[in-house]
Structures are given as structure tokens and as C-alpha cells.
């Protein structure tokens, strides 16, 4: 299996002098193409920081990140932007939408950069994705006129517009009620089923239980790891139980 991301001995710290705190303290991690991974851990354990480091949104103080065969620390900033735009997708906890644009324009925005000649194709693709996410009728709405769950689906559509190799989700269901959260997770499973790697940061066992590999972090290190069979839509309760037992075992 090809590795999409190889992180080696990543160090990231914040603050100066006595205040200095290693948020990532020598983390090594590999993610395969098409893999569905969750990162769990208590607040301040470094989950989100790891995600920002692996996606090249934050530079690292030590170690290196290789994405799709390229060492990100050696890639110029503009090229890094291109990689993020064409090979990665992002979904954040809060819907990160531009206020000025309606839902549809927000979704197509990353694809339109330098690509307006293909506007028709891009809009067609957006329509397909929005239909699949169940928000086809919302395309003309302003972002203030729809619910949080709907916005998050729009965010996923945006992440998928350029057919990325991996989609990162930082607590993508954190701000949603449990029904909406389940629907979003169904969508992620579907994406993963199409062969796109997904990496989710979460503290919710029910979310993590739907992935096939869980990394447990504490104090800037990966403390433990567990593997699950690919989720087929059945037996969710026993998977959740398995995860919670593991969490209790390592004291998270």
C-alpha cells in the first residue's frame, strides 16, 4: 500500500523560555492511501496541531513531513498552496465559509482559482456533490440562512471539489447534534469508500469507532494505536465499546 503521508519525528513547540511547551514531541506517523484514520486524545494533547503539521498549514520545528512523495519543508509556499488546493481537502469544526459568498460560490471557490474557463464543469461537479450531500436545494442561500449541519455538509462538498487524495477533518461534528453528526459521518464513510483517505481529529468515541485505525495522543506523543476492521454499517455498538475500553485502558 502506498503511503500518502509520512511524518517523521515531528517537533512543534509554542512559547519562549520557561513558557516553552512542546505540543508535538517527536511524533512519527504514516497514513496509507485510502485509509480512514482517527486521532483521539484529551484537550491540549496535540491532535489539531498534528493535523496542521501534516497538511503543511503550519511549519514544524523539527522532523519532516513527506506528502505524496514530497518533503513539505522543501516546498515553496506557493507550491504548498497548490498542493493543499489540489490534493487535500479540509473540514473544520466551525464552518469556515466566506460571508460574502452564497453556499454554492463558497463550495466552488477553491476550484475556481485560475480556472474560470471551466466554470460550467465546476458547477456541474458541485451540483453532483451537493445532491449527494443532500443540500442541492440550498445552493443560492446565504451562509447565514442555513443550519450548522447543512453548512458542514457544504464544507465537505467544498473539500471534495478537487478530488483530493486525503480529506482532513478537525472535529467536523463537534458543533453538531448527534443525528447531524451521524449523517456527516455517513458522508465521510462514503468518501472513504470511493478511495479517498480521511483523517479525523475527534474526542468522540462514536466517531472514532467508524474508522479503521485510531491514534491516541497524550502530551504531544502518540501513546497508543488501535486497528478496527473496515466499518460496514453494522455492529456500531460493539465497535464503540471496544474503543471506550481501550480509552479507559490507557487513561484518556
Amino acid at each position, binding site marked *: 500500500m502506498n503511503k500518502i503521508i509520512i511524518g517523521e519525528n515531528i517537533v512543534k513547540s509554542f512559547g519562549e523560555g520557561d513558557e516553552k511547551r512542546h505540543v508535538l514531541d517527536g511524533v512519527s506517523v504514516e497514513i496509507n492511501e485510502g485509509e480512514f484514520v482517527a486521532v483521539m486524545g484529551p484537550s491540549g494533547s496535540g491532535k489539531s496541531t498534528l493535523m496542521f503539521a501534516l497538511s503543511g498549514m503550519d511549519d514544524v520545528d523539527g522532523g519532516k513531513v513527506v506528502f505524496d512523495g514530497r518533503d513539505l519543508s522543501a516546498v515553496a509556499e506557493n507550491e504548498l498552496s497548490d498542493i493543499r488546493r489540489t490534493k487535500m481537502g479540509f473540514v473544520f469544526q466551525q464552518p469556515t465559509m466566506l460571508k460574502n459568498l452564497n453556499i454554492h460560490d463558497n463550495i466552488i471557490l477553491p476550484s475556481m482559482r485560475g480556472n474560470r474557463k471551466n*466554470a460550467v464543469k465546476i458547477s456541474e461537479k458541485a451540483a453532483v456533490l451537493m445532491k449527494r450531500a443532500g443540500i442541492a436545494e440550498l445552493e443560492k442561500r446565504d451562509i447565514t440562512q442555513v443550519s450548522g449541519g447543512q453548512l458542514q455538509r457544504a464544507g465537505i462538498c467544498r473539500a471534495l471539489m478537487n478530488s483530493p487524495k486525503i480529506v482532513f477533518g478537525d472535529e467536523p461534528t463537534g458543533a453538531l447534534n448527534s443525528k447531524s453528526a451521524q449523517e456527516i459521518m455517513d458522508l465521510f464513510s462514503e468518501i472513504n469508500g470511493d478511495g479517498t483517505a480521511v483523517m479525523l481529529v475527534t474526542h468522540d468515541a462514536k466517531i472514532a469507532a467508524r474508522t479503521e485505525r485510531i491514534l491516541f495522543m497524550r502530551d504531544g506523543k502518540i501513546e497508543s494505536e488501535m486497528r478496527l476492521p473496515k466499518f460496514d454499517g453494522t455492529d456500531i455498538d460493539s465497535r464503540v465499546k471496544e474503543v471506550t475500553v481501550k480509552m479507559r485502558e490507557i487513561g484518556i
Partner: protein
Amino acid sequence: MYYGIIRNDILKSKAITLTTMIFVAAAAMLVSLAAILVVNLTGSIDTLMTQAKTPHFMQMHSGEIDTVRLTAFAEQNGNVDEFQVLEFLNVDGAQIVFDGRSLADNVQDNGFSIQSKKFDYLLDLDGNVINVTDGELYVPICYMKDNTARVGDKAVISGKEFTVAGFLRDSQMNSTLSSSKRFLVSENDYAEIKDLGSTEYLIEFRLRDLSALSAFETAYTSAGLEANGPTITYALFKTLNAISDGLMIAVILLVSALVVSIAFMCIRFTLLAKIEDDYREIGVMKAIGLRVSDIKKVYLAKYAAIAAAGCILGFALSLVFRGALLENIRLYMGESESSSFAAALGIIGVLLVFLAIIAYVSVVLKRFRKISAAEAIRFGTSQEKHIGAKRFCLSRNRLLDTNIFLGVKDVRARKGLYATMLAVLVLSAFIIIVPQNLYNTISSKSFISYMGIGSCDMRIDIQQTDNISEKAAEIAKAMKVDSVISKYAVLTTKVFKTKTEGGSEESIKIELGDHSIFPVAYSQGRAPAAEDEVALSAINANELGKKVGDVMTLVMEGKEKNLMVCGIYSDITNGGKTAKAVFTDNSADIMRCVISAAFSDKALTDGKVLEYGNRFTFAKVTGVDEFVLQTFGPTISAIKKASYAGVAVALIITGLVTLLFMKMLVAKDRYSIAVMKAFGFTNSDIRLQYVTRSVFVLIMGIVLGTLLANTLGQVLAGAVISSFGASSFEFVINPLTAYLLCPMMMISAVLAATMIGTSGTGQIKISENIKE
């Protein structure tokens, strides 16, 4: 508590606070300067006119004079306090030589006088009445200013030698706008040179009751006394003294009004942005029961601090700069006795600026009332709908690059925010274009046609001499055979009597001849073409109460002749009281004659002026360019300076304000920038969006500013120009500078400021702004 909040706030936004303070300081400085200058100017004029005992009424007269009759009139009129007749010896400029340099090219009527005995004194630079001894010459102050003469210079007047002993202030003729200049010599010397020029008389009165001046004027006119020359009253002397510095004060006031409004806009912009940033906190404060007035105080305190600092700085600067601006007033008119009052008025002006700012901030803060606590806490931003931008969809965009589209979209979506920037840019364009157009207009050759002079190349004046009509005919004959002269016109001025509505008779000077050859600009109506038509200068029309279409009655040799008023024009020559007609008349004496000529080749002007000057020594021959230069030269150069200053100031304002706005926008838009970066937009993509915003706003600003300059600006400039005589005019626009160079300069300033202002986008970390 306030101190801590203000300090933290200012430390967090140093650049923005500083820029706002600079604008406040500039506004305060200008207002204070204007106040100081007004007080000093009026004070100095009063001092000068009091020390010199300026006449309340003066009639210039050339020709025979009956002093006995004049004395009798003065004794009979109860309002006359003092009366005198002074002599003014008109000497051709070529006959006045300082250290080898003659005044031949000078357009002023230079002449010699002795010190007056009763009033209308000529003063030295300390304000004392000059006591001149034999061999000494005192020179008008304007020749000190333009370095024509220096103290100690040897002066030769028609062969007689003098030493320049000093300079004099003449409360009547100081201004370059009054066309005569008096040199002072001793009585013995005057007697010696008396035959070298033509004598004019200044018939002067001081009145007991100045308010009854107009009654006195009527009495003088109806008594049929000597009146072959302009009549000038106390108020006009005052105006002439005030006009050039008054214009400067007017410009300063205008600029300060602009700067105050720019300071307001900076405050509005920063305040609106701050309110948006603090939306949640304001909501929380409201929710926990703080009164709106309490919340306002926190914000008001910060601006009070900025405004106070700016005002104090501005006032201090005005004290530093006042010396330079007062120099001219001090030189021409001497010290004012009210300089401490001036500083006090300056402080009052600055206080007004301060209060205006506080009031303005208070008005802007009114929108606190509209903030819903619930909404603020839930959403953290105002949930205003973006109206009008709906149809402008990215998905439908085929024309613009995506970044450019986003820039334009942002401007359309946040109109209120960009309106502030737009207003500043409109003002800047206005400040750049109006003075330039004004300069272009005044310095253009056609401008003199607004001033009562047709646009010709050479002008020959024959006056204060005998046989004027023969002399004029002689010149006209020479011109007729001169192949270089493409056209010429002989205009003869004669004095007639006209009947006023009250039934009394008044004298009026009418210029007779063909007025179609070198037409002047008529503010109403047209030039006289038929025998029974007359055109009046604006001042005459006003005084006689005539409009176009009215009938005016002349009395010629006892018979009445009715003329129809066919046009009204502006005139600054000969005291502004002139008239034009085409009828022929052989009755009255010729007062003066003006021959205008145009050349087929303009390059020959200088040579021809010299040729005619040498050939006809009795006439005063002037190239019109030279005439314009010497009459309006100081004004043109002042306006040129003002237009350069305007460009510099406007570009600085444009640059600073754009920089300020861009810095604030980047700070406000951190989150959106981080989002776009996360989704693969590069720093240069984001900068392109900001450049689009500022250039889009700038283009609108330039278009609006230019439109405004050509409409409102023309009206404003017209007000300035009408203060020296022209009543209606149109801008002469240089399209290259107005429509190409100025916009290019503004675009450069805005681009540079935007690039600097948005350099911060590179430092915005995605992780710090998106992290949950």
C-alpha cells in the same frame, strides 16, 4: 480604568492611532493658522490704514484742475473732515533705472510724490511717517519683494541721480492689483523732475462720518467736479490690501475643511471596524446591564485622548509655521496690534475641531443602540444582509479572474465600509484636479478675456498726453502696413454723463470702437454691434442697476441718447467701471486709447513690442504675456504653488488613508484570509484581491472626483476668481494632466500603499486563525 483600556488599545493599533492623530493635528494646525492669519491680517490692515490715515474717498484726475472750486466744495460739505490734492508725477518706466536696470518692462504706472502734509502718509517699514531729504528716494515695498531695488542702490530718474534710502508702505497702492505705484522724493527734488512726466492729481477726502460715504460720493459727482480718472473709496483700499493674503487664508480654510472631513472619515472607518471586532463584547456588556452611555464612554475616551493629543500638536505646529505665513503680511502691512488675541482665536479654532470630533464620534457610536445583545452573543457579528450583491455570483463569472472577482465582490458587499475610503479618494482627486484646472485657466491666454481684456498679443496704451486721436491714428496707420500684424483694433475711451434712476447725472467711461475683433467674455448677453447698444462691466451694471435689455440714457451735448444694454462682462481694468459701445462721437475729449494687435507669428511678439515701443515713445507698449505675468504673476505663481502643494497633500492623504484602510481590512479579514489560504490560495492571490478592492474603489473615486471637480470645483474656483473681478468662467482643462497624469499618480500611490498595507497577509498563520 479608562486609562488602562485606552493605553492597551492604542498600543495594539499604533499605526492606525498615529495616522488618525496626524490628520487631527493637521486639521487643528490649519484651522488655528487660518484664525491667526485672519486676526493678524485685519489687525495689520487696520494698523496700517490708521497710521497712514488712508483717505476715505479719492478721485484720480488728469488734466486741468480747479483747486479753488474743490476747496469751496470741501468747505461747504459738512461731512468733510480734511481735504487735500496730492500730485502724482507719472514717469515712464524706461526712465526709472536702478543700478542699470530700468523698469521699462514694468506694467505698473510708476510715479513720484512728495510726503503728504495732512493724511495719506507714506510709511517706512517701522510704520513711521517718512521724512525724506534731498537726493533720497523711497521705493514701493513690492520692488523690495521682487528684488528690483536694494537699499543703497543708485537710482537714476530721467537723468537725475538718487540713492535708495529705504522702502515705503503705501496704504493705497501696496497691492500689485492696484495699478499705480508711488515713489517718494523730497519737495526740492520733486520740483526738479516735475517736467519730466505728466502730472495726475489725487483729490483726497477724509470724512467725519464714514458711514455717509455713499451720500458724499453722490454729492461729489453731482457737483460736477474733476473726475477724469478712477474713483476709489476706503472700503476698496481695504479690499485691495486684503485680497492676496485673504485668498491664501481662504485656501487654507478650504484645505482645513477637507482635512477635517478626512480625519472624520478615518475615525468613522476605524470606529466601525472596532465595533465590528468588539461586537460580542459590546453585546455582553449590554447583556449584563451596562448602559449604552457607559459603553460609549470607553470608546469616546480613546478618541478624546487622540483628538486632544492631535489638537495640542496641531496648535503647537501652527505657532511654528505662522511666522512664515505672516511674513508677507508683516512686510506689506506691518505688525498687528492684536497678536495675543490671534493666539486666543487660534485656541478657540482648535477647541472647535476637538469638540467637532467628539460630537462626531458620539454620533457614530449611536449605532450601539441597534446592537442586539442576543444576536451579538450568539453570532458574534452583525447579521446585516448583504443587499445588491446577490446576482453577482462566482458561478456565473466568466469575465474576471477569480481573485479580481472576489475583490470586486467584497467592495459591492461591504459598501458602507468602502464608502469611507471612496469619499477620501474623491476628495483627494478633487484636491489634485481643482487647483490644477484653476492654474491652467488663469495661466491660459484666453483667461484675460474674463478680465475685460480681449486676447491679443500686444497692447498699446496712450493716455495722459495730448492729441490722443492723432497719435492713435499714427500707430494704426503703421499697423495697417505691418505684414506681421494679422488684426488690430483701436478702442477709444471717452467720459460721458448718464442719467441715473434718481434723476441725477453720473459720469461713465465708455470704450468706443469695434469690440468684435478682440472680444471679451460676456457673462450675460453679447458685445455691442449696433449704434444704440452698450455693454456694461459687472460693477457698473450693478451700480447703475441695469440688466441686459434695459435702457440707459446718455447726455451728450445737452441731448439725451438712449442705449440698450446688450451685454455684461467682467472687468478688472480701470477700477472695474467700464462700458463698451460702437457709436461714433466727436463731442467729448478722449481720455485714453488702447490699441490691441495680434501677430501672425506669436514668436515675433517680443521684437514687435520693442519696435513699437521705440517708434512710439509716447505710448506704453506691452506684450500681453508680460502684462498678464506682471498683473497676475504673483497670483498665478501662488496658485501654481497651491496646485503642487495640492498634489503632494492629496497623494500623501491617498497613500496614508489607503495604507490605513488596507492594514485595518487585513486585520479584520484575518479569518477569511486564513480560510482561503487553507484552501490553497497563495499570498499573491490574496494580495491581488486587495489590490482589486483598492483599485476598484480608486477608479470610482477618480471618476467621481473628476466629475465633482469639473462641476462643484468650477463653482468654487469661480468664487475665488470672482473675488478679483471675473464673474463667470469655464475651466481650461489640460487633458494630459487632468485625465492621465493625475490618475496615474493616484493609482501609483494607491498601489504602493496597498502593497505595503497588505504585506501582513503573508504573516497570517492559518492554524492560529482557524484553530477551534
